[in-house]
């Protein structure tokens, strides 16, 4: 006889969960300002 397996509730986020401590990379350009912006 077939029994239906219990499937855990879908993860809250349908996206791939982000690893802990994920920091988005800064955009490659423009670079940082070394003195001041005018």
């Amino acid at each position, binding site marked *: 006889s077939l029994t239906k397996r219990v499937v855990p509730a879908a993860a809250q986020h349908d996206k791939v969960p982000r690893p802990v401590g994920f920091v988005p990379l*800064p955009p*490659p*350009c*423009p*670079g*940082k*300002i*070394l*003195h*001041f*912006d*005018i």
Partner: protein
Amino acid sequence: VPAAPPAPLGCDDPESVAAAEFAVNYINGHSHHGYKFALNRIKDIRVIPQGPNNDIMFLELDLLETTCPILSPTPLENCTVRSFAEHAVEGDCDVKLQKVDGTLSVLASKCHSHADSREDILKVCPDCPLLAILNNTEVLGVVSAALNDYNSKTTDSYLRLLEIGRAKIQYHPVHAVVTEFAVGATNCSAEQAKANVGACQLLPEDQSNFGFCTATMVKRPSQDLQVDCQLYGHQVPAPPIPLLSRVSQPTGQDTS
């Protein structure tokens, strides 16, 4: 499976910074006007591979004027970037470089320099004196009076004016004109110049001796003139390729 293309260079990557510093040294080393410029920001970088270990790099750079005259032997790292309140001057440069086997060379460079907007300065510092245009009659008068005053007192060679670097006029709390100008030693002593100043010519390139003067003339409440000139001694000049213009008008100029 072909290797994935390398990730695009970021503007703060060490390789980008090294290329930008190389470009800034090239620009300063091949300009004969105004002041040295320092790197303020790498706005963009694009790398176009030409083959193994052979890349063309396009850089967009933001530079800021320093207080070092372009002919000063002071290393760029010891030059102070002119502060915002001193009426900063910005340089925008597009530079094309080639990198072959790790060696960089500049193929082309185009720069535009312009002073910060007067409104921006006055917003932050209402009493800060602002850059005057260099052919302002008050400015020309102070430079002429200052150089005559210096030459009348020096026991060294007679100095001739090379160019006015910058000038500011303030009206309070006193009415004063502050000027900076580049000078060159001539083949005359100051004494000889009194007899025949027309014969006094700048020294030939292999003996050239350039310097820099600052002069402040207070006009009101009382007249007072302060002049200070420093000569650098003879230096071997770099080949003249005028790349970064002087801000002779607060609106700036293009050069390439």
